[in-house]
């Protein structure tokens, strides 16, 4: 007993040290890595971690499976972009407005949808997100409709007259993303170790029991949704600024909502690092498919001839297949590792340890 306690304490120290080392390395990375492509992948991973982790607070810790998180993502993206494009308000003010807007709609949506449970809640969350998507498509005067909003430059960030950054390269986005990731991980850690977090988890495990113990379901579910929506909106704003283009079919789509859930499911829901693992698995995979790295490497390695039908098929079509792989991954994960990749390997390790003992 004592030994295991000491052991776990030793592990924590090692973990903290490891964490510090990783963070320092991440902060130094742009100094050593010249490749913009590598930075691009890292930024996408950061955005995905923020998306997944914010869903995790609602879905993983509170057990409310929202499949409509694109509403908050799109809210952040659209508010920031619209304020910048049509009102000339710099994005670092705009993203606060986006967070506020997401919080407000989250509380409205929450007060309506949290009266429903289980599958009904899932359906309602989808319906709400679809209402946002169709509205953004139709309110052409406000949102540019299906054309979307395209920005060419972001005004430089200045504090007291000195230019901090002009957003000309990928590096400022990298650091912004990294800071957001550290913030959401801190937020998740705080949630997990606070009274609020215990309330959330009690609701997840058995909401009737939680209710009978005096936990106000409406307040705490809305609190979880609020926190979740604010960070999702932040991810949306960062995405919009980074990519420079948004339209309803990218930032408000059902596909986006599903992929947000997917990041958590793949990594393991209700754990701090689940979404991190999920993003680390999903982003490189979908980028490799999108840029057709897999098809090209198969061809260049000589396994498949470029002129053959299969080679032709790979170069032409495989770049469209990243969503197919998402689908296959979901099916495989749900059927064979319902606790996600992290949970699967933990269980595997535990089994090994048991066998060894």
């Amino acid at each position: 007993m004592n030994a295991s306690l000491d052991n776990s304490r030793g592990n924590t120290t090692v973990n903290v040290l490891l964490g510090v080392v990783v963070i320092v390395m991440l902060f130094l990375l742009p100094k050593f890595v010249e490749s913009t492509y590598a930075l691009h992948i890292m930024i996408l991973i950061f955005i995905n971690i923020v998306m997944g982790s914010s869903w995790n607070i609602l879905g993983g810790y509170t057990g409310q499976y929202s499949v409509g998180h694109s509403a908050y993502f799109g809210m952040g993206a659209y508010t920031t972009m619209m304020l910048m494009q049509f009102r000339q308000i710099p994005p670092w003010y705009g993203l606060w407005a986006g967070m506020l807007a997401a919080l407000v709609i989250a509380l409205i949506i929450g007060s309506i949808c949290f009266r429903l449970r289980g599958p009904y809640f899932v359906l309602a969350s989808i319906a709400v997100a679809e209402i946002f998507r169709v509205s953004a498509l139709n309110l052409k005067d406000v949102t540019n409709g299906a054309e979307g909003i395209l920005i060419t430059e972001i005004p430089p960030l200045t504090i007291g007259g000195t230019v901090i950054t002009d957003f000309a390269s990928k590096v400022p986005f990298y650091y912004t993303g990294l800071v957001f990731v550290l913030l959401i991980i801190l937020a998740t850690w705080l949630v997990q170790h606070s009274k609020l977090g215990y309330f959330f988890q009690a609701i997840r495990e058995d909401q009737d029991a939680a209710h009978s113990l005096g936990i106000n379901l409406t307040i705490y579910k809305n609190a979880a949704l609020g926190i979740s929506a604010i960070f999702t909106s932040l991810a949306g704003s960062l995405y919009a600024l980074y990519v420079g283009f948004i339209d309803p079919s990218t930032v408000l789509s059902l596909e986006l909502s599903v992929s947000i859930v997917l990041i958590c499911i793949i990594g393991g829901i209700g754990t701090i690092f689940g979404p991190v693992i999920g993003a680390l698995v999903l982003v490189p995979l979908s980028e490799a498919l999108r840029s057709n790295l897999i098809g090209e490497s198969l061809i260049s390695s000589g396994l498949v001839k470029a002129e053959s039908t299969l080679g032709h098929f790979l170069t032409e079509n495989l770049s469209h297949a990243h969503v197919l792989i998402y689908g296959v991954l979901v099916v495989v994960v749900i059927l064979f590792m319902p606790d996600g990749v992290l949970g699967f390997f933990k269980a595997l390790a535990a089994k090994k340890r048991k066998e060894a003992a």
Partner: protein
Amino acid sequence: MNIFVQSLISGILIGGVYALIGIGLTIIFGVMRVINFAHGDLLMIGMYGTYYLFTLFNIDPFVSIVITIPLMFLYGAFLQKFFINRVLGALPQNQILLTIGMGLVMSNAVMLAFTSDYKILSTTYSSSSVSILGISISSPLVISFIITAAITAALYWFLMKTNTGQAIRATAQDREAAQLMGINVKRMSIIAFGLGASLAGTAGALISPTYYIFPQVGSTFTLKAFVITVLGGMGSIVGATLGGILIGVAESLGGAYIGSGWKEVVVFVLFLLVLLFKPSGLMGKSNA
């Protein structure tokens, strides 16, 4: 007045097909308590099947349902046996995610195979219309409504009169009790999913002469199917029939009076209202 009657009638006609989609979803939910998020994708597969039967073999879309129904039944039974069956005891969230994943696989596999181009199945009668009492109605809609009505009637007969139908209804009422009565619930589940899939596929075949055919067409119909089943009461077949027609009419009138871009919003707002004020649906039991 004329616009109103016209929208009402075409709403009812298209509602018949919606009812078919809804009934499929509601049977699956009733028997297994699983919400099938891949329902629209099954419909999409039905559409593609019909399209290729028509372009390759020149089989009329309304005749091809004779092939679509059994094939889609087998496909549904296969999905049930190898995928859905494994998560019957799992968390509802996991069931939902599994079917979402299956839907993604189907729509994207179709996209890989046939590209994401919009396909149009144009028959000689696609754009023709019949005129009844001065109101002109698209004739493919009329034919599909008649077929829908026939299929729905046959389905009611099957579920009410045959042994298998009664066993399915018993399973839907109480899975454990049905099992104790010696009903093979696993088999009933397979039949139920097969039925659901073949109804969705048939609906796809019936709308293919009047709709664009593309791999992502399913998601709209999945959402519509949810609205219909929730509206009618999850698991209620009569409810789904009524719900389908109601949604058809709501969409058609919304499109005529508010604008076609907003008609989906009308449907979703209606959906949220029903979820909030009568979550058991029009025909559902209050404690369901």
